[in-house]
């Protein structure tokens, strides 16, 4: 089933995908670079193209709080945010996942102040990695659209019932115009029909949600939530397989590019992966032994798939778009190191931090990262991490 591709801004396409999924409630507090998503949804609701309740709120904290109520009532709920907005939602993120509410949120990743930056960065995504949300990173506009459609099906699946964040890099993805194939309406309705949670607010079946838990029961409640998070990966993979069958595009938790037989691997997440692929192509032609591992599913972390992808590698070069200040450098690199800990034969990990606050890394930049990284792997990395392209 291959539809027509047409040029469209990714934020607008994302909003159209939410329309295809027939969202019932949209809470909106526009913040750069997420603004176009909810602006277009406002138009769709105002023009009657989408029959949804559109709730303009006075802060991101309220946006997600409104989502809690609507998802608890059983409505298909969507919101979007970025950077500082995600931070203002922070405490409510735990409530959403603790109450097992299937909310879908698009996050146009951006740096966190100060100094004020509205540009692309992964600091916001990493700051909320322990909040109990499923987190999926996208690489291009087509993935954004496809993952939004999958997100509703994943979140509402009876074995999941957890909120989902779809991460797209601010500006690098949210504001570019790309050729995107929009799935057909009937196909989306068949693929991701509305599924109501087994527990919703209803006058004839009263329940109390988000209750008080004294020490005697809190551990059990958190463990129940953790068990739910740990078993969702096969369901996500199954939904991606169903998507591939229906729409012809395949997604996996960990994706490898030219990794066969490669002793050296570069690791990226998000839209930089596309640039990194070109750099890998060029260096391969020049005879450099390099492959690329891209992570799509960040939470729950796909330990088995990641270890399988890197088990034969000798060097792993990791690029973080975030600093874990005063700690291990890049949060992704430190997490990968801990994932590798149980392997007998571990690759050397060389950690890079770059692309902060919208700083571009070009194909040549990635070539330099690879060449420098391989040299550091030989000589040994003295610093905890290398910062890409800083003026000294």
């Amino acid at each position, binding site marked *: 089933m291959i539809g027509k591709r047409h040029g469209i801004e990714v934020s607008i396409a994302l909003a159209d995908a939410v329309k295809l999924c027939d969202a019932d409630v949209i809470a909106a507090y526009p913040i750069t670079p997420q603004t176009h998503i909810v602006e277009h949804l406002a138009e769709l609701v105002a023009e009657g193209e989408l029959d949804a309740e559109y709730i303009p709120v006075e802060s991101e904290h309220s946006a997600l709080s409104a989502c809690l109520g609507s998802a608890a009532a059983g409505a298909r709920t969507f919101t979007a945010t970025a950077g500082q907005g995600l931070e203002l939602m922070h405490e409510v993120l735990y409530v959403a996942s*603790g*109450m*097992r*509410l299937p909310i879908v949120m698009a996050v146009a990743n951006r740096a966190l102040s100060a100094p004020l930056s509205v540009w692309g960065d992964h600091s916001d995504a990493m700051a909320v990695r322990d909040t109990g949300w499923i987190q999926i990173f996208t690489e291009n506009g087509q993935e954004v659209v496809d993952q939004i459609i999958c997100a509703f099906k994943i979140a509402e699946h009876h074995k999941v*019932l957890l909120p989902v964040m779809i991460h797209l890099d601010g500006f690098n993805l949210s504001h570019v115009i790309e050729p995107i194939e929009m799935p057909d309406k009937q196909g989306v309705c068949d693929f991701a029909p509305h599924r109501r*949670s*087994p*527990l919703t607010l209803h006058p004839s079946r*009263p*329940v*109390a*949600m*988000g*209750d008080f*838990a*004294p020490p*005697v*029961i809190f*551990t*059990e*409640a958190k*463990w*129940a*939530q953790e*068990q739910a998070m740990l078993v969702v990966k096969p369901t996500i993979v199954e939904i991606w397989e169903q998507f591939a069958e229906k729409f012809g595009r395949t997604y996996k938790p960990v994706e490898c590019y030219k990794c066969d037989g490669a002793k050296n691997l570069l690791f990226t997440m998000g839209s930089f992966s596309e640039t990194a692929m070109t750099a890998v192509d060029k260096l391969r032609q020049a005879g450099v032994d390099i492959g690329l591992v891209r992570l799509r599913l960040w939470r729950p972390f796909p330990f088995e798939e990641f270890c399988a992808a890197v088990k034969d590698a000798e060097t792993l070069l990791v690029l973080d778009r975030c600093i874990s200040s005063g700690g291990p450098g890049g949060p992704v690199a430190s997490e990968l190191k801990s994932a590798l800990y149980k392997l007998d034969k571990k690759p050397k990990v060389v950690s890079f931090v770059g692309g902060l606050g919208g700083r571009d890394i070009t194909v040549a930049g990635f070539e330099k990262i690879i060449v420098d990284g391989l040299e550091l792997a030989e000589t040994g990395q003295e610093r905890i991490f290398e910062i890409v392209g800083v003026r000294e």
Partner: protein
Amino acid sequence: MAKSENELTWKDIEIGAAVIEPGSAAAYRTGDWRSQRPTYDFSRCLKCGICFVFCPEGCIGQNQKGFFEANPYYCKGCGICAYECPTRVIVMREEEEK
């Protein structure tokens, strides 16, 4: 409640830790919080009921002989009854004292 709170395992927890049966604070053993407990010398008791009126926990009732006495399941040991008692019937003692 089929099981008390400290018997529930993580598998017994409803989705999202929701509470699906009606209940009230009657199930809370607030007596667990107590470090001091009220003791009574009923020979001086007038059965005036002032302790009953002032108890913020609402845990004081009349026993079979008509004396007012706190229910240790709920009494959190605040000592207000002992303070208000006009004839000093009630003395607060440390929980570990006999």
